[in-house]
Structure formats: structure tokens, C-alpha cells
């Protein structure tokens, strides 16, 4: 149901189990029991093919931005790829802050660093769990554009409770409510859509209606 190379949004109200689904795909503990299977088209175990980004930036406070971006290699005991880390850091616009620790950065900058760390993992499937929801409106819209740009061509699953976010960024939207999961048809320009484009506004209002019904 996740289309390769596209953004799939899982939209729903808080507490309905969106994050649980994402955590199941990521192979994380959910505190519940899951009967079913999650499969990938190439048959390889999914757990090794995902990179995960959450609402909290999860930057380690004792490491600087560069070391945080290279955390994966350090945790697996691999050679650090500092050149690539430097590229990604500048791609997310943090070149001047690479040696700073997280507490010296703003919320938006911290999420940029987390984005660079997620990209550093270089996995085919990216699982984003409301990564922008704690940011202010302007920073959030900038982050949506940046994330869309740097993740172009990858398979992304974005969990969100914000219809506006889904309307801007999704190729396909799944709506998860108390009554179950349903796919919402989106016939519009491909993302990323302007926040006041007619398509965006139209999708947003339909998603909002579906959420309220």
C-alpha cells in the first residue's frame, strides 16, 4: 500500500493508532500484540530498510550536530562517512552550526539536523512520525518543502494529524479514524503543492470533512 518513491500520508486524529502502525513497520515496541504481516516487495526484512524520524528530534544532547548526523555508523561500528555527513548538513542549511550541540539550536534547526541524520541512514523507506508538528507555522512550512526536496524519489510514510500538511505533501492519503482505515482519492497536481494553491485548499477541505464525519 506504500507506493515506491512517493509520499504516503497516514492522517488521523490523535490517539487513533497512527504512530502504532508506523512503529510496527519500523520494528519498534508498541506495547500491544500484532497479528498480521508486513511485507516488502523485494522480500527483504523491512526492519533493516527503514530510517525513522519522530516528533521529538531525538538528537543526543552530548553530541554536536555532526556527530549526531553520523550516529548510525557509530552505533553499528562502521567507518564514519564524514564527507557525506558534511554534504547533508549543508544541504539542510546547517553548515555554520555543525559543531554546535543541540541545546544551542532552535527547534527548526534541530529538526533539520534530525532530517540530515535520517538521510544519512540512506534507507529506501523513511518513516516520519509527525516530525514537523511541534514547529511554528512558518518553520513547519519551510521544513515540509525542505524535506520534500531532499527526500525526492524515496518512499516516505508520514504520520500526521494535520490535513493541511497532508494536502501539501502527499501523493496518497490514508485516513485512519475510529471506524477504520480508508484510502482517500487525490486527483490533483503532484506535490509539493503551494499552501494556498486551489488543489491544496480543495484536498484540505475534503480531508477535514472526512475527519469530522
Amino acid at each position, binding site marked *: 500500500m506504500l507506493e515506491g518513491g512517493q509520499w504516503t500520508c497516514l492522517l488521523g486524529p490523535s490517539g487513533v493508532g497512527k504512530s502504532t502502525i508506523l512503529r510496527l513497520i519500523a520494528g519498534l515496541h508498541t506495547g500491544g500484540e500484532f497479528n498480521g504481516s508486513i511485507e516488502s516487495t523485494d522480500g527483504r526484512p523491512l526492519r533493516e530498510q527503514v530510517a525513522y524520524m519522530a516528533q521529538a528530534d*531525538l538528537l*543526543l544532547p552530548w553530541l554536536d550536530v555532526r556527530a549526531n548526523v553520523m550516529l548510525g555508523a557509530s*552505533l553499528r561500528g562502521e567507518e564514519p562517512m564524514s564527507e557525506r555527513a558534511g554534504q547533508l548538513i549543508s544541504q539542510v542549511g546547517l553548515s555554520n552550526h555543525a559543531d554546535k550541540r543541540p*541545546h544551542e539550536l532552535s527547534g527548526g534547526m534541530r529538526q533539520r539536523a534530525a532530517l540530515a541524520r535520517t538521510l544519512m541512514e540512506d534507507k529506501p523507506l523513511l518513516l516520519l512520525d509527525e516530525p514537523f508538528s511541534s514547529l511554528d507555522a512558518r518553520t513547519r512550512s519551510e521544513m515540509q518543502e525542505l524535506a520534500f526536496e531532499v527526500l525526492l524519489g524515496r518512499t516516505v510514510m508520514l504520520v500526521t494529524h494535520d490535513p493541511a500538511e497532508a494536502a501539501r505533501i502527499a501523493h496518497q492519503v490514508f485516513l485512519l479514524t475510529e471506524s477504520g482505515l480508508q484510502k482517500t482519492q487525490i486527483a490533483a497536481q503532484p506535490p509539493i503543492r503551494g499552501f494556498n494553491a486551489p488543489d491544496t485548499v480543495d484536498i484540505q477541505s475534503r480531508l477535514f470533512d472526512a475527519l469530522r464525519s
Partner: protein
Amino acid sequence: MIKKIRDIAIVVLVALTVWELLVRVTGVPSFILPGPLRVGRAAVDHAELIGEHALVTLSEVLAGLLLGTVLGISTSLYLMVSGSARRLLLPLMLFSQTVPIFALAPLLTLWLGYGVGSKIVMTLLIIYFPVASTFYDGLRNTPRGFLDLATTMNASSSRTLFRIRVPAALPSLASGLTLAAVYAPIGAVIGEWVGASRGLGYLMLLANGRVKIDLMFAALFALVAMTIALHTLVNRVGRRLTRWSVGT
């Protein structure tokens, strides 16, 4: 900082003045309670003696702190990696805390003699639990999200322990060590009271026995000064090393 020092100086000065006045007004004999001036004179007169014994106590305290810290940290790490240790050792550790450690001092002297050994072990026993329990608590309470991240990055459990859990627990360890720095001199002095021929605890008993109460007070103040210095040092170093934890 300067303001803080000034405030402390004022409080100390007022307390000493009240003490001196109280002694003069009530006319209490100096073998019951000497005034601070008299204690000060004793401290100056016997500076060398006090210094000698303070050095002995200090070395016991430092050795006990070092060994207790190493032992406490190792225990916490062992508890983290071994499930059976958690089941078997943890209840035992908690139960051991119901034993008043002071009551063990005569036994330690019996087993380890009158030398520094029994005092070091006494100090170690006193600080072991605060260090082990604070660090273990810190190790167990690693933020869930950090561990999730490590899982999705396919981290091995030993690297997760040493690169995520241990650094995340350092602020807890630092507060445990600050506590230990205050407890450690108590351990050494208790050991010296039970049986010793050197150290501030011994000097205090000796002076007390010879009714040199001014010297006893001087030795007590040397002990207090040592404890404050140790606490400040450990606190500073701890804060410096975990500066990142401020505001998180």
C-alpha cells in the same frame, strides 16, 4: 558568584559572633564550650598536627571514593546487562541497605586492623549504594526515543549501552558522586573513631579525652572544610562534564 561568597561570609561571621558572645555572656567554661577565637588559636597553634592527621583522613576518603565509585559503576553496568543479576542481586542490594553500616565499623576494624584499610572499606561501603543506585537509575531511564532510534539504526546492544545509555546517565552519576563526596568523610571518621592511631577522627577523640575541647573543635572544622572542598570539586567537575544536560 562574588555575591554568593559575600552572603556566605556574612552568615558565617554572624554565627561566629553570636557564638563568641554566648560563651562570654554565659561564662560557660572552655572545657565545655570554647569560643571561636579560642578554637581559632588552637587551630593555628596545632596547625601542623591537624594538617598531618587531615592528610591521613583525606587519603582514606579519596581511596574510598575511588574504589566505591569504580565498584558502584561496575555493579550498575552489570545489572544492566544481566537479567539474572537484576533478579538475584538487586533485592540483595536493597536489603543490604537495612543494615546500619556504622554498626559494621567494629567488625571491619577486627578484620582489617587499625590501619587505613578498615577506614577505606568503611568509606567505600558508605558511598557504594548512592553511587550504584543513582547511576543504575540513570541507565534504566534512558529516554525511550533514543532507544527507538538506536533500534531503527540496527545498533548492537553493547554500543547502545556505552554510546547512549551511559552518556545519558552521566548527570545522574554526577549527582550520586556529589552525594558520595559528602558521605565519604563520615565513613572515614567513623572508622577512625572505632580504632585508629592517626586521622582527624582519632585526633578528635584524643583531644576530647584530654579535655582539649578547642583542639577538638579545630579538628572538626578541618573536617568540615575538607568535606566542603570535596563537595565543591566533585560538583564542579560533574557539571562541567554534563554541561549539555542543562535545560534538557
